[in-house]
């Protein structure tokens, strides 16, 4: 075990000042991913700055009718919050679909967004991995990739982002707020994760040393009628092999508003904007849902072992939207 120092941050400005001077430091939230990676040598920080005592642990309604979720809110608190459950039920469902009760009690919202892929080549330092060691290669592309990306990947990395929570946040146009030594800023989730390209080791658009302080959900009436469904290889405590968050508003049998995002298909939560565009104004029926899914998945690039994800996501979209449409009709 490599020795590291540990300190507990008490206010945001001194915390970001700490990280600015020490590129070898990492923020420690719940530690549910970082500590595992430290045990296996994937992460070897010299310093951990614990952010859980920072005053970022609240969920508040915003003036415009959205929600502002502090970065250190735990996954359990987020999923249990009455306003989350009422206004963005898919978000609560997504969080509860992830990990275990114990892990959700520890894991934070900020940490969830920044968790690393579970690609088994990435998590085992005896293998090459472009994300871990730029330029070392991607054995997954030609090796084992049953649960790897079908959208937005590159020859340099085909790993998927593991977050469930992020999929719902992507569907609801979440905005990530951060502080850094150079000042604060905001990043819409759509711009938060960088394209893979030839730099899979660069995962987010956060400035160096930045600390996520909150995630804001803009008001979205359609989100009140939303759902998350996760498909995995066992009934619980496994990462998704495909998931979807959907929100649907149907009037007179026609799709008035639709939000759709996929998980476990790309290096980031995948907002299905094409499908949404195709579906708006269309009849809320299975054939239209399938057509919309197909439009989104037309860009899919499958590998030897992960082609099943295309029909999986398509079926999931049809099933989920049909459920939501039937409930609206009732």
């Amino acid at each position: 075990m490599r020795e590291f120092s540990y300190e507990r941050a008490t206010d945001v400005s001194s915390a970001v000042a700490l990280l600015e001077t020490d590129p070898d430091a990492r923020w420690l939230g719940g530690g549910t991913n970082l500590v595992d990676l430290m045990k296996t040598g994937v992460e070897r920080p010299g310093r951990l700055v614990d952010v859980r005592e920072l005053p970022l642990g609240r969920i508040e309604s915003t003036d415009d009718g959205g929600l502002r979720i502090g970065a250190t809110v735990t996954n359990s608190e987020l999923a249990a919050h009455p306003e989350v459950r009422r206004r963005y039920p898919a978000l609560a469902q997504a969080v509860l679909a992830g990990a275990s009760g114990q892990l959700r009690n520890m894991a934070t919202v900020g940490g969830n967004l920044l968790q690393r892929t579970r690609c088994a080549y990435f998590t085992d330092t005896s293998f090459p991995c472009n994300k871990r060691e730029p330029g070392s290669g991607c054995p997954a592309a030609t090796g084992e990739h049953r649960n790897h990306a079908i959208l937005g990947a590159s020859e340099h990395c085909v790993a998927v982002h593991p977050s469930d929570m992020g999929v719902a946040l992507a569907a609801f146009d979440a905005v990530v707020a951060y502080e850094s030594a150079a000042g604060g800023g905001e990043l819409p989730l759509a711009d938060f994760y960088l394209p893979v390209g030839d730099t899979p080791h660069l995962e987010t658009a956060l400035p160096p040393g930045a600390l996520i302080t909150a995630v804001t959900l803009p008001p979205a009436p359609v989100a009140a009628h939303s759902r998350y469904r996760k498909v995995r290889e066992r009934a619980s405590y496994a990462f998704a092999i495909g998931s979807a968050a959907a929100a649907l508003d149907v009037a007179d049998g026609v799709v008035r508003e639709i939000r759709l995002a996929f998980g476990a298909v790309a290096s980031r939560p995948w907002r299905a904007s094409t499908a949404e565009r195709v579906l708006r104004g269309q009849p809320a029926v299975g054939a239209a849902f399938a057509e919309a899914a197909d439009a989104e998945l037309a860009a899919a690039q499958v590998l030897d072992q992960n082609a099943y994800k295309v029909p999986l996501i398509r079926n999931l979209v049809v099933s989920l939207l049909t459920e939501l449409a039937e409930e609206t009709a009732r």
Partner: protein
Amino acid sequence: MTTTAQPPTVGAAHTRVEGRDKVTGAARYASEQPFDQLVHSWLVLSTVARGRVRKVGEEAVRAMPGVLAVLHHGNAPRLTTDYASMLGAPDPTVALFQHDRVPHAGWPVALVVAETPEQAREAAESLVVEYVEEPHDVAFHAGRPDAYVPEDGGAVATKGDLEAELAASSVVVDASYTTPEQHHSAMEPHAATARWEGGRLEVVDSNQGSMWVADELAKLFSLDPSSVRVRSEHIGGAFGSKGVRPHQVAAAMAATVLQRPVRLALTRRQTFAVTGYRSPTAQRVRLGADADGRLRAFGHEALNLTSTLRPFVETSAALGRVLYDARAHHTVHRLVDVDMPTPTWMRAPGEAPGSFAVESALDELAERLGMDPIALRARNEPAVGPLSGLPFSSRNLLGCFEEGARRFGWAERDPRPRMRREGRWLLGTGTAAATYPSGAAPSTASVTAEADGTFTVRISAADVGTGARTALTLIAAEALDVAPERVDVRIGDSDFGPAWVAGGSMGTRSWALAVTSAVGELRGRLALADGEIPPEGITARTDTAGLLAELAKKERHSFGAQFAEVAVDVATGEIRVRRMLGIFAAGRIVNPLTARSQLIGGMTWGISMALHEEAVRDEASGSQLGADFASYHVAANADVPLIEADWLEDPVPDDPVGIKGIGEIGIVGVAAAISNAAWHATGVRHRDLPLRPDRVLRAEAEAVGD
């Protein structure tokens, strides 16, 4: 002996005698025992799959904080490795640091010893080992031209002309099945602490047989057997993996070099690499039957991989030799040597993967015959061993099916597939037979009548979490006709003398024979003592070798019937088990409480085997990918539905204890029952384990495309 009539002990539910210690944390496991002057060690495993160690960069590591020693092939003590133990040839990994060859990925190449575990780990992970790499081959699949029939006498069993009987059959099933590489995954990783004490090598370990380990360590280090003592008091699961493994050898080696107590506790990833696993299998089953379901031909060919170091046969084709008769009966095992670790026994070795193939094929045959799967099995029930011609000591497979069918509601089942739907789920039910040998091996035990009126039993048995200690307490109490509270059973210590291991479903049966026989001996001594018990007590000691040699040669097996109901969402590929029932005929059940848990545990393994467990081998590197519980899935609580396990009376008339052993039978047949249920739900057959969502989706697409 001053006794009063006792309520029944054997057959009555009894909580574990060490249960309170375990739930309060008072029970210490192998890596929790304190020692003065204890130092810690860490294994370094090969990252290449074939080649030679060119250089171990020990100088840099020796300078690291706390480091005491770096052992490798260049400096390690020499071992004797060409011996046979009570379980045959040793696992090749015990030849630790004896040569520079790397026969597979994960081969131990060095051990770093340091004052703290953290220092040992950091140094071990910093150790630079240079290799001369050679091309490797880890590709396992059916039809490899280099597959061979091993010399092992049991590899082939035949009677009749298989091809002729297949040709004469009205209905033929010829199907191929695969099962993947699977790992034992005991909750407690392997750990051992070794020290020299009073001229003896003492090892505190977590194993399935302390005598087994002591015997092999004595042979490895060329020590007098009496100068090695191995203890293993509490064990957090074993499943076949906790025999003699590199951790005990490494700890003993380092303790010898440093003359200090040395501990080696494996990480989870290391347990995947160096403690054995179940080979993948590729199996072909050919069944030919008359229109009335009577089997003319039974053919089962099973292929598994082994290392280049030692042939290990996963005896998948063995259970057909017991279960079904046919005019022509051919079973054969083949091996292919690859650059992989040597497989070992794991959870119903042979029967678990073999039953998936055979019991799936039987279901396919029933479908083609338009016959109920249970009726098909009844039609082919043999009166004597199909190949041996020996009588069964007892056999009540059909009774298990009958009782299971009644309780499961089998009669109401519509045999047609894809008839039941509930929301997005298609529902189906399936069944399969189970069997496992019920052997016994020579063991010694002693029983002491203490002056205070209690009794102490000493036997080198192992309680791997099953409740064996409690079962032996009940057995001894019954034989002594005293309350269990007056019996203290001590196990897990090689000083108690030779005894069979907790393995092969033979532990409780073998040990019970020794304990009851020692009690019989003690009763004789006590009668002579005339009620006077000296302060040191009166001890009787027996060896069951003679008793077992006199046992009539018979087909001795447990039997069972497995039932499962599953739900399949063909749109997403998800399969969930809804309920399971297992009815067993497994001789005398000693402790219903722990027996039921053990059978339910076995059936839960079966769920994992059917739906989850699969080790992934990266062919390019020859290493296992995802050697952790995040990637290697076993059933989570949410995957385990209502499982009922129960048993029939199963008297074994000529047997001195009537116990058959229940360690493995719970898993046998479960994967087939689940797979058969998935067919019943969807109309699509699955012949490759596990039944993953991607496979269900692909099968559905192919079925729709047909």
